[in-house]
């Protein structure tokens, strides 16, 4: 086998209807169809999901960790941005 690798794909799994897709991990695949099949085989073997998204890893753009202090720290003392002053009924899940 040659050492040429298939591209890397990021896998997002929705575990239940109504929930969000969450990042599950990554896999190698030659194209999108194979990526979904591989994701199914690698990440949903134990009934983890009802829906799969894949996106080629090169299309994910990330924030720069060096800028973390300027990007995230200023939100630290803005308590008024949290909706913590409402009473939620117990029946409301996943908030």
């Amino acid at each position, binding site marked *: 086998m040659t050492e040429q690798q298939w591209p890397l794909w990021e896998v997002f799994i929705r575990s239940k209807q109504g929930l969000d897709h969450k990042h599950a991990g990554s896999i*190698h695949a030659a194209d999108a169809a*194979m990526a979904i*099949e*591989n994701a199914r085989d690698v990440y949903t073997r134990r009934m983890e999901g009802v829906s799969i998204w894949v996106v080629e890893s090169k299309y994910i753009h990330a924030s720069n960790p060096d800028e973390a202090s300027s990007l995230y720290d200023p939100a630290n003392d803005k308590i008024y941005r949290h909706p913590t002053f409402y009473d939620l009924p117990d029946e409301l899940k996943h908030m």
Partner: protein
Amino acid sequence: MDRNSHINYILQLADNALVLGHRNSEWTGHGPILEQDIALSNIALDLIGQARYLYQYAAKLAAGEVTEDTLAYGRDAWDFRNCLLVEQTNGDWGKTILRQFLFSAWQYFFYEQLQQSRDSELAAIAEKAYKEVVYHLRWSSEWVIRLGDGTTESHQRMEKALELLWKFTGEFFVPAGYEKEGIGIAVDPAVIRPLWEDKVNEVLAEAGLRANPETWMQTGGKEGRHTEELGYLLAEMQFLQRAYPGCEW
């Protein structure tokens, strides 16, 4: 259908699933890429799961000392009823894929029909297994097309695999003695033959492959006359139970 034929019929289905499941499991840890290693191991587990349900049912009908384990590990090659295709060696990835595809296409239409069986236990097993086989067929079809319509080398390897395996496909549709008796319980091979041919020809055409229609078809597996490959497979698969009968861990 008398009891012996009934048991043989179930054993044929169980042996198909166990032998191919074992063949696929030989790839575990050796797959060409981690993702496909897991995919084929999943299929191996599906097939061995199907085999277990069928052996348990056969053991119940046989009664006495017979268990699913004695059926899987205690019989010799001439007692196995699996078709010749599933016992063929793995070869390269292309041969393994093609073997899976040809068999999954058969299992797909077979289980579809078996769900209508008057034997409610077989119908229930078929219903569960069918869902698994839908995926096996989809997965293996994708791969046959990918490899057949891929590079020059992958195409050549698929042609070679087709030449090696095609002669074992005729057996699907030649009923063994115990199959002929099973009206109402067994699936009529004549019903699934055209369905199988359409599906297989469609995928092969898309893959740019063509089976030789002049191929002489080898049969015998369903009646216990196997190729030499099965003996080696059983020697490895059954070793532990043969050397340490009844051993558990």
